[in-house]
Every structure is written in structure tokens, then in C-alpha cells.
């Protein structure tokens, strides 16, 4: 897909490294996500994709390097303040509030936009809590319509099917009104039809709702079809960045991600042992 909106970066990762003790989850990863893009992070299992997203969402703090959002350094901003900045996310393993209804789950997404706390809340009729709830309910219903989950609005989230729960999680992230939405494997475990629906939703929330999308996804078909740009991670390092078709043509990527035999010789100081051709002894 062409036509990326060149409007300056929304998100910049600048030399991000992340270590857990001796384990290097990320090493010097830099990339930028432009406004209006669908940007995907791909890579084999354990490549550090989710770690990277966790650095953006505030779950992890990079050991070195930084994260900039709309030009502002947010490396040290706590997670709970990133919703108000304009970052929303879904999780790889479902993270809904299992005992709440779908509607309540999505309304939690409005938390940082609602002003009436427990005092006016308890008084409901006086103090404007009801008016505020109704106003936000109206906006939330638009998201519910968009994602076609009207029929489960009052259902308890924990009792829904997997595909529906994924959709509710997306609705909750959308309710935050984020400028940047992080989707951690939005299509994992879905059947073809559900994947097609989800791909449509992602395109629409990008084009119609104007959200920039940063996505981790394993389904290469989807990634190729809907991403404007892609970054490839392998063992915590960035090995390629660019348009999907460029990236897939990159021999490093073919070797690392698609498991093809490597015909290119890597830099000698990188990993000399791996560059040797398998020869019969």
C-alpha cells in the first residue's frame, strides 16, 4: 500500500536498549512512526517485539535510549499518564476486565476523559455525573457500532468468545481516543473470517478515525497487505525497515524471518560463526 502520510513522526524510538540482568531483549533499536501510518513490527518469536511495544506503552523502561512521542521525550513518563498523552494499546494475551460487561469495559477506556470522581459519582443526579456518563456513552456507542458488537453490549466480557473479546479489547483501546494505538497481535488465534474483519477494522480506524497504528503481527499476509511500513527485529536488533515489499526482498530478513538459507555474508564482527557455509566434514 502506498500513500503514507508524511506529516512528521508521531513516535520515535531512539537507540532503545533493554536488558534484564544478562539478557539483552533489545539492542540499539531506532525507528520512527509517521502520523497516519500503519506501522508493523515483525520478527521471529523472542525477537523483542512485545518488549519494544512495552517500552512505548510504559510497561518497561529502556535501559538505554529513549522514546519520543510527538517530539516530547516520554521515556520516564509512567504508564498511567500515557493514556492522556494519546497512547492506547491492546494486549497479546487478552487483558479485559473479565467480570465487567462489555459496555463497562469500554467505558473504562474513557477514564482519563471523564472528570466526575467518586464524590459527584455517588451523588449521580446532582453534580453532573449522569450528564457526563450519557455524553460519553453516546461516543462509546459509536465505537460499538463501528466494531459491530452491539449484540454483546451487556454481556459479561469474560464469557465471550475469543474473537469477540479481541474486538472488545480493540474497542476499549479506541475509547481512549488515542493518537497512536498499539496492537499486540490483533489477529492471533483467529480464523480467516475474523482476520478479514479485524484487518478491515484496522484499516478503518487508521483511515476514518485518524489513529496511527503500531502493530505486531505474525500473519505475513495481513502485514504485507495493510502496513505502510514495517520494521523487522531479530534477536533484539533491527535488521530492516521500510515498505513491506522492500523489506521482504531484503536477504537478511529472508534468512532471519523466513528461515531461508543465507547467501549473504554478514559483517565479520557481527557473528562470524554463522557466516560459514555448512560444509560436510
Amino acid at each position: 500500500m502506498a500513500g503514507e502520510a508524511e506529516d512528521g513522526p508521531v513516535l520515535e524510538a531512539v537507540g532503545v536498549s533493554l536488558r534484564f540482568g544478562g539478557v539483552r531483549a533489545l539492542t540499539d533499536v531506532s525507528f520512527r512512526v509517521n502520523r497516519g501510518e500503519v506501522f508493523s513490527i515483525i520478527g521471529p518469536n523472542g525477537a523483542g517485539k512485545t518488549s519494544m511495544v512495552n517500552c512505548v506503552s510504559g510497561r518497561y523502561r529502556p535501559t538505554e535510549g529513549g522514546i519520543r512521542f510527538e517530539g516530547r521525550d516520554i521515556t520516564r513518563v509512567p504508564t498511567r499518564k500515557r493514556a492522556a498523552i494519546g497512547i492506547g494499546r491492546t494486549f497479546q494475551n487478552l487483558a479485559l476486565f473479565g467480570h465487567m460487561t462489555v459496555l463497562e469495559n469500554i467505558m473504562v477506556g474513557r477514564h482519563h476523559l471523564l472528570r466526575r470522581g467518586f464524590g459527584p459519582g455517588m451523588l449521580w443526579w446532582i453534580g453532573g455525573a449522569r450528564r457526563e456518563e450519557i455524553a460519553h456513552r453516546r461516543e462509546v456507542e459509536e465505537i460499538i457500532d463501528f466494531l459491530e458488537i452491539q449484540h454483546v453490549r451487556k454481556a459479561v466480557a469474560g464469557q465471550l468468545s475469543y474473537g469477540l473479546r479481541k474486538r472488545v479489547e480493540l474497542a476499549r483501546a479506541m475509547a481512549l481516543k488515542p493518537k497512536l494505538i498499539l496492537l499486540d497481535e490483533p489477529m492471533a488465534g483467529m480464523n480467516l473470517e475474523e482476520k478479514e474483519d479485524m484487518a478491515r477494522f484496522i484499516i478503518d480506524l487508521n483511515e476514518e478515525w485518524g489513529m496511527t497504528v503500531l502493530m505486531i503481527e505474525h500473519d505475513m499476509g495481513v502485514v504485507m497487505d495493510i502496513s505502510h511500513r514495517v520494521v523487522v527485529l531479530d534477536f533484539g536488533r533491527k535488521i530492516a525497515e521500510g515498505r513491506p515489499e522492500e523489506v521482504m526482498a531484503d536477504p537478511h530478513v529472508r534468512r532471519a524471518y523466513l528461515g531461508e538459507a543465507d547467501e549473504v555474508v554478514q559483517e565479520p564482527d557481527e557473528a562470524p560463526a554463522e557466516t560459514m557455509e555448512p560444509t560436510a566434514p
Partner: protein
Amino acid sequence: MTAMTPAGDFRSTYREDMTIFPTRMSRYALWLGIALLCLAPLMLGRYELGLLITIGFSAIAALGLNILVGFTGQISIGHAAFFGFGAFASAWLHEYAHIPVAFCIPLAGLMTTAVGLVFGLPAARLKGLYLAIATLAAQFILEDFFARAPWFTGGVAGRITEPFALFGWRADREESYFYVVLAWVVVMFLMASNLMRTRDGRALVAVRDHYLSAEMMGINLAYYRTLSFGIASFYAGIGGALYAHYLLFVSVEAFNILFSIQFLGMVIIGGLGSVMGSLMGAAFMTLLPEVVQAGADLLAGSPVDRALRLGASISFLREMAIGAAIILFLIFEPDGLARRWRLIRAYWKLYPYSH
């Protein structure tokens, strides 16, 4: 499973869709129930009214504990100490500040909130067993304080309290005090129901269900854990103050850990995370000993008693029956009376086509 609404019940505004009691029938039932309760002093004796009053102030305190344990997922085994603090605070306010009792009750609630926040601040960083031990510490610290602060509690002698009075109207008998407790129960339950359908109530449940994604939604975990502690203490304080002006005597020994566990029992039996469940649990725990006592009275001197030579053991049987009832309850209805009530209603709604 979606919410069951009767056929023909269409909501055309969001406002209609946000009511506490979802159907017209349930609202009528509520008004009828309150009207019947208003007539109760005309029909019931003092003893039965006393039981209703006990259910009332226990339910308020249990609701506070339910907000903490059931909705926020934090544990507390020091609730009775806060209940006691509210009782003493109300009595003390009246005696030393000469504030009318009607105003002492909410002020005692606020004082208890302040104390609860002091213990709640460290508790906001703890979870599970560690929090249980921390609240146990609160229980013992407060109990010790009651015993060592005669200026506040009257020391070992306890403190005599004044009956409720407002503009010359004295509620010193069960018949009149009943209305005071009823009004407080209605107000406190409405406030809790309102809380649970607005921002901060949802945030509390979000903290319980999935704190990581709650944080991603912009929810400050420490703030809401502390807030929950504060609200729970407020409810405990109000319940305690109502208790103090009913019994007209507050004793230091009353607010021990067993009493705290009794509150936990009310919340668990009534239904964790259910506002109305708190009322059901309080009623169950208050009435169960009465029912068992009635059974024991029937048994005493009966042929069964003579055949088995039970005699004095009947009182032990009574204690055991209470314990057994609670255990059976936890096995067969772990989600509490509130859920059982929903199932019964659903059964009759769908009868005879239950599938």
C-alpha cells in the same frame, strides 16, 4: 449470557438504560419493600425491630467491606476495628464537642475515613496475604488504642452514648430509631450503587480484574487502592456510629477480630462484588443464629433430646450448626446469595421453558 430483560422493555434513551434497578417491576418491588419497612414499627415487636436495626448497621459496614474486598479485590481483616472507631468517634464527638447526635454520625464517618486512609496508604502497595497481615496489624493497633485511650473510649469501663436526637425529636426506642437506620441504609446503598456506575467505581473493579491494563487505561493503582480503603472506612464508621447510638453503650472489647471475620463472612455469603449482596449477607448472618436458636429450643426437651441425651450439648450444636451452614454455603453457592437470587429470578422468568 446477555442481561435478561422482559419482552417489550425497550429503552429509547441512554438515561433509561442506566438505572440501578433495570426493570419497572424491580423498581415497584423496591418502593413496595421500603413502604412495608416503613410500616414495620407498627407491626413488629421491639425484638424483631432490634434485629432489623442490627441488619441495617451491619449491612452498611458490610457494604463498605464489599467495596474494598469484592469490588477492588483488596482484603481486610480489620474492618471491625474501623467499625468500632466510628462508634467511639460518634460518642466522643457528642460528649466533648456537644454536636447533636444526628451530625455526629456523618462526622464519625469522616473521622474513620481519615484513620482508614492512614492505614490504607501503606496498604495500597500491598496485595493478598501481605495486605491481610497489614490489616490485621490495623485491627490490633486500633484495639490497643481503644484500651489505652480512656479520653476517647472511656477505657475498660466503656462509654455511654446518647440516643439519636434531631431538633427535639428523640429516637430512643426501637420504633423510632428504626427509621434513622432505614434512612441511612437507603442513602448509603444508593451512593454505593451510583459509585459503581460511574468513573471511579469502574476504576475500582478494573484494578481488581486486571491491574496492568487498568494502568494502561490511565488508572492510578495506588490512588484507587487507597480510595477504596477510605470508602470502606467511611461505611464502617457510619455503621459503627449507628451501632453506638442504638446500644447506647460502647465497650472496648466488642470490636475484636472475630467481629471482623463476621463482616468478611457477610460479604462472602452475600456475594463478593454485589451491592445488594451485602444486605443479604448481613441479614443472613444476623438471622442465622436466631433460626438455629429457635431450632435448638424446639429440640430441647423433645423426644430426640431425651433419646440422645443431648441436654447441655444443644448449645454446642447451635454453634456447630452456624459454622456448618456457612461452610455448606461456601461449597454450594460460592458466589453468594446475590447470585442465588438472580438464578431464582431467572428460573421463574423462563419457567416452564428454561432452554
